[in-house]
């Protein structure tokens, strides 16, 4: 544990030598940032919206992926299941990024001069890339799901991977507050 803490501490020190510092300080001077910081309830309200957005995204991901894994809703066709949840996954992601952007602006230095924040952003990009592949792979087979099992092993692996990846992103979000500085 100590060595992870030391490494994160060194990463924070390194971030302090980069232009991320000037950029985050510049955001700190913007009127929207000042408004967010001077209203006590503003940050918790946007944090709550951020959590509700990930709830919509993660709930939809679970319902779709558990169907793919054969663990839920086997009486519903994959076509119907996909049509119901895939748009809400992208909609949830949009709300997540929008509320997340406000949260970055609300505490720019605490967030950006923080190695855990950048690890979370890296995990988020990987998760979005896997989601794009996953969506097109499922869409290509969704109408023949019960007829032909071609490629299902890769899709099942993707279904588990996406649930794990979103948990990693959520974990990153919670630990931003605990980065050693």
């Amino acid at each position, binding site marked *: *544990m100590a060595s992870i803490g030391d490494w994160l501490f060194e990463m924070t020190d390194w971030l302090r030598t980069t232009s991320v510092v000037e950029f985050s300080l510049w955001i700190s001077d913007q009127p929207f940032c000042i408004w967010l910081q001077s209203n006590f309830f503003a940050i918790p309200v946007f944090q*709550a919206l951020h*959590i509700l957005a990930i709830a*919509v995204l993660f709930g939809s991901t679970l*319902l779709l992926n558990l169907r793919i894994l054969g663990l839920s*809703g086997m009486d519903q066709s994959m076509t119907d299941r996909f049509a119901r949840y895939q748009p809400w996954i992208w909609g949830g992601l949009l709300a997540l990024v929008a509320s997340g952007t406000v949260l970055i602006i609300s505490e720019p230095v605490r967030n950006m001069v923080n190695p855990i924040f950048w690890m979370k952003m890296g995990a988020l990009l990987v998760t979005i890339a896997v989601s794009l592949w996953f969506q097109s792979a499922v869409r290509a087979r969704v109408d023949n799901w019960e007829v032909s099992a071609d490629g299902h092993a890769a899709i099942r692996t993707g279904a588990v991977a996406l649930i794990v990846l979103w948990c990693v992103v*959520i974990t990153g979000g919670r630990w931003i507050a605990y980065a050693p500085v």
Partner: protein
Amino acid sequence: MILNSFWESLEGSAFSSAIASSEWMFPTIETLHVIAIVSVVGAIIIMDLRLLGLTSRNRLVTAIARDTLPLTWIAFACAVITGLLLFVSKATSYMINPYFLFKMGLLALAGLNMAFFHFVTWKTVAEWDGSVAVIPTAAKLAGLGSLIFWALIVLCGRIIGFTLGIYH
């Protein structure tokens, strides 16, 4: 309050102190609490939107209940267990925090709303299961109330993070 000494002794137990004094235990339990809450609320939103007739319109209400209820209860159990572990580590600070008490009150309201829906409105579900056009007002109100209560529960949870320890 006579209960003060109870919360103090709970917080002072070896188990609670271990969570409070560890560098990683509290944030790790918090992380599991967030994943559990996100799962509960995500599943509940799917059911509520169906009760309001806004989504899953081509799927029976009873089918959506089967889709979401196992996830809801498993994740809720995880949220309660992790929540209790967080609570005992700082019991006295939580018990004097108004937002924690609001959150518990809202949880009770969400529970009463669900109980009324389950024991009264759900009795006639066979009559309105198939068509979005005949969803009774009581079912729509249960869905709307649930959305509002859970959104406020999440909000109070976040405000606790900013106010724990400022009340004495």
